[in-house]
């Protein structure tokens, strides 16, 4: 316990101490300059990780964003004589605007297609910088001079470690400025990613549809992620311009973007330390490799670690001895190669490439991810366990406002949904009365799920109207409809797989946060208060569906039946007036179905209205007040469960000979 507490508080303190004393240890101006570059790249990489690690999109345009920041600073100095300090916020703003430009295609395409778009963005920016000679001085580049902000030369005699020559002084001072910017970036990024915004980024990566249906607009948050990322790249760019004192278009090319991606991958995604480690690797390693002695030490160290790890695996995992031996042999061969090599300069880049490939292949989670797992295995007590959160027992977990709307909560009026030649819904009208459970049944492919998607705005109906609480819902986007009070679960479960159970529910509680982006970044009291209240509420919702014990488990580790319950808890977090359940009992065994039925009853008791799609007839017949039957997109029957069950057309189309075939 104590060790863990010291570690969690001590980590940042140790980091801060290292940053403070580093200039005393690194006396060579060359290496100090590299350290400054590492700090600058770290700022950019922390921002890249927001897009790459959290929203899961690959950007090959970040070098261009760095260039935009750098050229903002450069142009301001060249054309207007505006100096360092005003250049920093302006660079952030200009790069953020370009971040929006980069985010717009991200709303239409994802994955490899988006990567190609960002690549094109990077190339175009580089060409523009090259061609717009009047503004950017073209291929000749821009020269800048680092100003001296505080003249500390009078200290010269008192601190012998400082070499008080002007050049050295500038470099030390500039180091502290970038180190300060890095610390600030770390704090702000940490706060954003730990907040509801960070969860929204991850939610839209794992399931964009579910995000929208939880009222978390994919559109808004994707743009936000790109803007945060671009803003940090802009800051890094301005710092970079004054650190290098000379910028030219070819500083910001494709290779640099790729190096940035490599740095985050190798260091470790979704962590703070990972990007910093990545920056160290891409900046320092190629330089360290110039020194053959040092290279041999590094190769020897890697080989030693590999042998130790290999020996451990040899004992513990006897079945895969051959497979585990391969990396050990490779590391030893690498060490032997380093001893044989006489001059390294010719092979520098090749060696660098091989090392990176090796890390990516054998440590797919990056160095930090690997270390985390190793620590968790060796000293499980050191791994941070989650704070115990008490469920909010004062308020009810599930509440609903009960207003009369002419006795009809949801009015589906002659809805037609046409897909090419197929009419998935053909003039269907349904009225759902408040406080009731309305069943929707029919054969597979009869249009039930299509109806769900129309109701939640995923599809826009070809004809007809949907009115909810007397308001027209047609043409509204999913996240707005969720905000109006319609929540749903999904037939093919759509959880946020890499988030924990409580985080999944917290995404549903996104609407309870009023705090602005600035409040989150500054960590003001309101966001803390809201976070605490939301966590308590989330716990009570997990409690409600019986999953409180598993709150900190990742959702993907849950068995199927429990995933369905978690979806219900997440939907309830929206405080909906109407809950749409799409086959909640599919894949559940008899006792679990009983548990589910109890939960649905409690939800209704709390005042919610429910639309239930289900194939288990005993569930439908036992729960529903009214049942609508669809077949080939048309309504073929409607009425009380018993009535519907006895209907000849329903038996023919759906139930088959035996009405209770489904147990």
């Amino acid at each position, binding site marked *: 316990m104590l060790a863990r507490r010291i570690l969690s508080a001590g980590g940042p303190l140790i980091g801060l101490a290292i940053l403070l004393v580093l200039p005393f240890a690194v006396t060579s101006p060359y290496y100090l300059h590299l350290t400054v570059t590492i700090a600058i790249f770290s700022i950019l990489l922390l921002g890249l990780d927001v897009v790459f690690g959290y929203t899961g999109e690959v950007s090959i345009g970040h070098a261009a964003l760095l260039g935009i920041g750098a050229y903002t600073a450069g142009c301001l100095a060249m054309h207007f004589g505006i100096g360092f300090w005003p250049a920093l916020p302006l660079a952030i703003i200009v790069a953020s605007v370009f971040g929006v430009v980069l985010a717009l295609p991200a709303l239409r395409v994802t994955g490899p297609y988006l990567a190609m778009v960002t690549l094109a963005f990077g190339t175009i920016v580089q060409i523009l910088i090259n061609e717009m000679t009047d503004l950017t001085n073209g291929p000749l580049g821009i020269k800048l001079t680092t100003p001296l902000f505080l003249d500390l030369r009078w200290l010269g005699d008192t601190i012998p470690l400082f070499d008080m020559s002007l050049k050295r002084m500038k470099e030390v001072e500039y180091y502290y400025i970038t180190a300060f910017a890095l610390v600030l970036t770390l704090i702000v990024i940490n706060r954003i990613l730990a907040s509801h915004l960070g969860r929204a980024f991850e939610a839209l990566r794992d399931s964009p549809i579910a995000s929208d249906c939880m009222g978390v607009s994919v559109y808004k948050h994707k743009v936000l992620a790109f803007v945060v990322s671009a803003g940090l790249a802009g800051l890094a760019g301005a710092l970079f311009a004054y650190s290098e004192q000379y910028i030219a278009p070819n500083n910001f090319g494709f290779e640099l973007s790729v190096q940035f991606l490599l740095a985050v991958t190798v260091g470790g995604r979704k962590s703070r330390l990972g990007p910093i480690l990545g920056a160290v690797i891409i900046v320092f390693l190629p330089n360290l490799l110039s020194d053959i002695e040092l290279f041999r030490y590094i190769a020897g160290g890697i080989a030693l670690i590999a042998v130790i790890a290999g020996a451990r695996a040899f004992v513990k995992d006897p079945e895969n001895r051959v497979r585990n031996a391969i990396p050990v042999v490779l590391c030893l061969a690498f060490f032997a190669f380093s001893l044989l090599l006489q001059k390294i300069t010719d092979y520098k880049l090749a060696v660098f490439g091989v090392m990176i490939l090796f890390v990516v292949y054998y440590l797919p989670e990056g160095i930090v991810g690997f270390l985390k797992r190793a620590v968790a295995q060796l000293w499980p007590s050191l791994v941070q366990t989650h704070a115990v959160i008490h469920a909010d027992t004062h308020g009810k977990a599930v509440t609903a406002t009960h207003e009369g709307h002419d006795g009809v909560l949801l009015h589906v009026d002659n809805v037609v949904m046409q897909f090419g030649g197929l009419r998935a819904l053909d003039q269907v009208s349904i009225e759902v009365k408040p406080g009731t459970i309305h069943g929707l049944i029919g*054969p597979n*492919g009869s249009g039930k799920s299509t109806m769900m998607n129309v109701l939640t705005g995923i599809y826009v109906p070809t004809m007809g109207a949907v009115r909810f609480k007397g308001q027209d819902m047609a043409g509204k986007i999913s996240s707005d409809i969720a905000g109006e009070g319609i929540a749903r679960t999904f037939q093919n479960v759509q959880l946020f797989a890499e988030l924990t159970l409580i985080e999944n529910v917290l995404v549903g509680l996104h609407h309870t946060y009023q705090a602005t982006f600035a409040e989150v970044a500054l960590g003001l009291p309101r966001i803390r208060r809201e976070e605490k209240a939301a966590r308590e509420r989330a716990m009570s919702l997990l409690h409600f569906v019986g999953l409180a014990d598993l709150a900190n488990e990742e959702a993907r*580790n849950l*068995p199927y039946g429990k995933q369905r319950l978690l979806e219900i808890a997440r939907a309830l977090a929206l405080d909906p007036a109407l809950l749409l359940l799409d086959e909640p009992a599919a894949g559940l065994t008899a*006792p679990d179905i009983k548990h589910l039925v109890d939960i649905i009853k409690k939800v209704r008791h709390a005042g919610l209205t429910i639309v239930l799609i289900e194939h288990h007839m005993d569930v439908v017949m036992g729960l529903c007040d009214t049942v609508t039957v669809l077949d080939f997109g048309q309504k073929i029957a409607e009425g009380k469960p018993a009535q519907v069950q006895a209907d000849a057309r329903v038996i023919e189309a759906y139930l088959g000979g035996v009405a209770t075939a*489904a147990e």
Partner: protein
Amino acid sequence: MLEVNDLVAGYGKVKVLHGLSLKVEEGRLVTLIGSNGAGKTTTLRAISGMIAPESGTVRLGGEDLTGLPSFKITKKGLAHSPEGRRVFPTQSVKDNLLLGAFPRLTGARERGDVEGDLDRMFTLFPRLAERRAQLAGTLSGGEQQMLAMARALMLNPRVLLLDEPSMGLAPRLVAEVFATIARLKDEKITMLLVEQFAAAALEVADFGYVLENGRVAAKGPAEALRNDSAVRAAYLGHAH
């Protein structure tokens, strides 16, 4: 035919199976029942190599399959019709079926008469014959389930694993799926069936295992389990 001994398996840190043993004899239909999270699907996944078991053994006709990757296990003649159907949505019904026979073209087993088996499937599932040129993704849920089963049968399997074949199907189709399973049983196909409808599964099966928390809690001839009062109360729910 299929023998599982002391199987321990799970996902990452989470262990699901804690020493599970079961046996499926040739030509028999054996069913696994149990509540959600008991480890039914995990058992099938560990048998067919989709997850690597931590310890224990899986034997098919006496041959050790433990730890082999799933594509090699399939080549030995073990077919898995997975939960949620997983047909190849952008390929035609016929191509889906031919892919099911793919391991026969490269494995050590006899290649046999692929075209003949294709015709056999179309006789067994007439709906699929009607739709042979249609893309699998455009089939209805019930048809996709038929396709998933037929695709697995195209392997000419020595053992067929069926995971939740009735999930998400309309009551009429559920009855149809069970009728198909009964027909396969008449053809002496060795099967291991995981089903949410425990009652219906025990109706059609020869032998049953009841799983609880990754262990076998009870086993016996299907009829005995069906009449066991504890099993009835816990798994067959409100007896209709």
